[in-house]
């Protein structure tokens, strides 16, 4: 029976928000045993929702990303199903301990002693304040791999700067490189590409450190600065400056490589953007043959007959006219219908999908990108994302639904640590073991 790639690797997850949990999700998908440690007495600001106990009223008017709780109800334990954060909690276990107390720390230390990797992505001084650092972990487990994913690294003047993904991207140049060409960066939406990227790189770093440890027997400290990692997303802008001393400007949806036309064009819409019913199609023409194909699908309109448009350079110089001509045409078309006609002709194109339409797409459906699973103490099943690593002999599956806080207290305390009945009851009474956040937390 083949083993999953990371089977046998035990990872302690001391993470918040997205970059860390996303990294450990990937490890869990690949077979690692990921154990979250959570403190029921301290509300983690960005991990299990905006607040512990949102009311129905407080969620009114919020979009799906922040306000879309199961069956549109906050439910009995809202922290277990915040739509913002719940997806990366698949394939993980969770136990609780009051880490503000010496005993809570000692419990964590005992778990670390039985683990291979410790991952955290808190603000740079958070773990130190608790007394958790590399040396402390090594005293419990000499060959531990500690992976830290701070916003700006562990050294230098920015080490303690607070940041979400959107802030570290600002420092690395992104908001001045993206967004509408005719508006200043205050029009930019808040995005979290940096979190995603930091998580991807951190997962890779952990896999490398685990491989190294198998060969050498040595653990190590790994530092993933999310900001520094994120810079790779802007590689061409860095290279433009390195080679020519100039900066790229905001290009909207146009191509940095001057492929033209390249953009997002309106399609027939059943309703307005405010209700999520506007429709758009993305089109990129990368070469003359694709331009010819596009002209054919359009029915060879007069405006596209201009011979100057027959070359890449000619099209790159006439992008405003191309965009106007294309938009006039696409606005009469259905986005999916046009998508298939353009692709059949060999033109790169796709509808810009609002999330509910991605959930309904036949290609995603047929590829099985969604997994229907139950949630802890909520009725019904929901389509979560399935792992995207498709390895037929060692298949990554959605084997554990998004984990509820403390769902594996019995496993961690009794099986892993060998805690007896009497001590278990004492630890419950003293507030280490719980499935509920402290009632004082709103």
């Amino acid at each position, binding site marked *: 029976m083949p083993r999953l790639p990371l089977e046998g690797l035990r990872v302690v997850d001391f993470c918040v928000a997205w970059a860390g949990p996303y990294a450990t999700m990937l490890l869990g998908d690949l077979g690692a045993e990921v154990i979250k440690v959570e403190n029921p007495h301290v509300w983690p600001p960005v991990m299990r929702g905006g607040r512990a106990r949102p009311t129905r009223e407080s969620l009114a008017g919020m979009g799906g990303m922040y306000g879309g709780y199961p069956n549109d109800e906050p439910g009995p334990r809202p922290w277990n199903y915040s739509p913002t954060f719940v997806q990366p909690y698949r394939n993980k276990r969770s136990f609780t301990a009051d880490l503000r107390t010496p005993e809570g720390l000692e419990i964590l230390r005992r778990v670390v002693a039985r683990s291979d990797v410790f991952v955290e992505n808190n603000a740079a001084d958070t773990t130190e304040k608790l007394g958790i650092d590399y040396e402390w972990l090594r005293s419990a487990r000499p060959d531990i791999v500690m992976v830290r994913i701070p916003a700006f690294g562990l050294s230098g003047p920015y080490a303690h700067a607070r940041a979400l993904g959107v802030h570290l991207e600002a420092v690395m140049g992104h908001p001045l490189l993206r967004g509408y060409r005719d508006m200043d960066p205050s029009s930019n939406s808040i995005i979290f590409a940096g979190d995603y990227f930091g998580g991807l790189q951190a997962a890779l770093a952990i896999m490398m450190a685990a491989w190294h440890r198998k060969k050498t027997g040595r653990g190590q400290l790994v530092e993933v600065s999310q900001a520094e990692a994120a810079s*790779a997303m802007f590689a061409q802008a860095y*290279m433009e400056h390195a080679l020519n001393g100039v900066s790229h400007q905001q290009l909207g949806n146009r191509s940095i490589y001057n492929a033209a036309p390249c953009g997002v064009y309106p399609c027939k819409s059943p309703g307005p953007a405010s209700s999520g019913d506007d429709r758009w199609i993305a089109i990129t023409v990368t070469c003359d043959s694709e331009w010819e194909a596009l002209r054919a699908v359009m029915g060879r309109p007069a405006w596209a007959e201009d011979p100057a448009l027959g070359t890449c350079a000619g099209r790159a110089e006439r992008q405003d006219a191309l965009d106007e001509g294309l938009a006039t045409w696409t606005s009469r078309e259905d986005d999916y219908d046009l998508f298939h006609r353009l692709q059949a002709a060999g033109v790169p194109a796709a509808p810009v999908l609002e999330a509910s339409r991605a959930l309904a797409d036949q290609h995603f459906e047929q590829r099985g990108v969604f997994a229907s699973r139950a949630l802890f103490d909520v009725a019904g099943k929901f389509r979560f994302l399935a792992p995207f690593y498709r390895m037929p002999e060692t298949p990554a599956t959605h084997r554990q639904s998004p984990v509820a806080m403390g769902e594996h207290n019995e496993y961690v305390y009794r099986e892993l640590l060998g805690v007896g009945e009497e001590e278990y009851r004492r630890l419950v009474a003293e507030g280490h073991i719980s499935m509920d956040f402290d009632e004082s937390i709103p």
Partner: protein
Amino acid sequence: MAGALDDLTILDLTQYVTGPYGTRLLADYGANVIKVERPGGDPARRLGPFPGGHSHPEKSGTFFYFNLNKRAIVLDLKNPAHVEVFGRLVDAADVVVESFRPGALDQLGVGWDYIHGRKPSLPLVSISNFGQSGPYRDYKGSEVVLFGFAGEMYATGLAGREPVKMYGTAGLVQAGAAAAGAILAAAMVGREQGIGQHVDFAIADALLSSADRRHSTLIGHEFSGRKTVRRASEAVGLADGVFPCRDGYVEMHGSARKWERLLDMLDRPSWALEPRWIRPEAAQDATTVEEFNALLTGWLMERTKREVWREARRARVLCTPLLTIAEIFEDEAFAERGFWQAVDHPYLGTVKTPGRPFIMTDSPWELRHSAPLLGGNTREILAELGYRGDELTALDAYHPPVEVD
């Protein structure tokens, strides 16, 4: 100290951005990555930026960045002698990676059946736009097409305008980082368990799972029927959004989350201490928000973005400057942390570029190779594969080096 992956050989047939970035990350930490280019080279060699804007196959900034630390050979997989070279490369590899159209490698006779037949423990990772199966298998992609279809482009931008993408090829680069994990996992299984497998990595799948909001908007809708839409205007919340300052802009999303810290950052001016700002309904009242933000902007306009960031760091407020690329290049803190690496290149001279992706203390990043020239390592790779004498000379002569202009 050696890189963590110094015992892995990766046969890399990928092109453009996603695959090459994935294998570069592995090459960065010691993997022996042999890039096989088709005659004429990776099409990324035709993508800028170029010095002075002049296109040249050895001067592509895109190719340079995504192919550091690799060695390269040119093979024409329609030529039987070259297929034999490819076969020996397969024998020596721990994982093969490709990013051609689905089925293209099979048509050349060197696809999964060939690789698995030749070396059963060897995995093949196929990177594609939409995957190796499903109705859109053969569809073409691009940054905006894939990010629009699978990523969270729909809710990016303003409601009155078109959805708007990220910079350049940010989504394709993200997918490359995700693909690196698939490549390494497949190599691990091959080496440890002797199991070869054909891994299907779709850029669309990875972006659909993106932690940049898409996983949240999907499950938010699945849970509740609620949609996530573009906001109506660039209007911002109370001390929340992008604000101008004396020499540019600062990013302040979430900065009012801890009000006392924000007051501390501002050094508690009398205008900020007025009780009307901290009424529970203040953040929902457009007039109040506008009034506060006008006063805040006045404070910001008296300071540079770096001065604002210094105060924000002191007070631990979520607030950072919008730096230009030029400012990042000149920043002392990034330089002192070792963010940059000077890379020598025969055509580009010495290039200052971001170096290590992350810091591994016991198996560090190392610059071992500059970006490879077209066929630049052919001779040494052929020799490593056991070719000698006339046979080696004949194969090596196939692709003469590009002349320096």
